[in-house]
């Protein structure tokens, strides 16, 4: 079945350092979403990418969708303590029904 893997599983950074998480799907995705889940909280939608090679920015966050639409990345510039949490990518299991499968997640810790 379709799998969505993320690397790294964990990342500890010093405040001010950059951070990147990578999302890789076993099959082509029609679109991809990114969510952030704070410790003890629920996932919160960040962004959706649809087009091949698409790049979107939200302040210090940069999201990219691969040309082959099988991978994606999230890059955070100059991390802050408020960036702490687990970042998930989510892609549709099959096109048409748009059931989403979540990636394995990357847990980010930011050391002040």
């Amino acid at each position, binding site marked *: 079945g379709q799998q969505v893997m993320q690397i790294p599983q964990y990342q500890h950074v010093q405040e001010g350092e950059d951070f990147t998480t990578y999302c890789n799907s076993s099959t082509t995705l029609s679109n991809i979403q990114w969510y952030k889940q704070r410790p003890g909280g629920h996932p*919160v939608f960040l962004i959706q990418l649809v087009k091949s090679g698409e790049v979107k920015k939200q302040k210090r966050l940069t999201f990219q969708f691969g040309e082959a639409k099988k991978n994606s990345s999230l890059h955070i510039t100059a991390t802050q303590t408020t960036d702490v949490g687990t970042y998930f990518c989510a892609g549709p299991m099959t096109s048409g029904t748009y059931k989403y499968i979540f990636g394995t997640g990357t847990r980010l810790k930011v050391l002040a």
Partner: protein
Amino acid sequence: EAGVAQSPRYKIIEKRQSVAFWCNPISGHATLYWYQQILGQGPKLLIQFQNNGVVDDSQLPKDRFSAERLKGVDSTLKIQPAKLEDSAVYLCASSFGLAGNYNEQFFGPGTRLTVL
């Protein structure tokens, strides 16, 4: 705008007992999702409704789990009987769009289930 509501927030039961979770999605949202999130893992879709019809329940353990969405609004998820491996957070989410449309998912706070 009110968010997705879920109750209860916490539940502790013994194995083989039954439990039910309730979800009230954001008003006007056509699609409702139930996810199971085991500690340290990503949410796993159990069932997805579009209005009051089931879009997908391929990962729902139907021998013990059941869900319904009467009148296309509120939804309940039931486990009967519970097993130890059902210990997890059960998340409900809703989205405005129908399948194939832009469908940002809004999550509720979840119900943390512990099976002893």
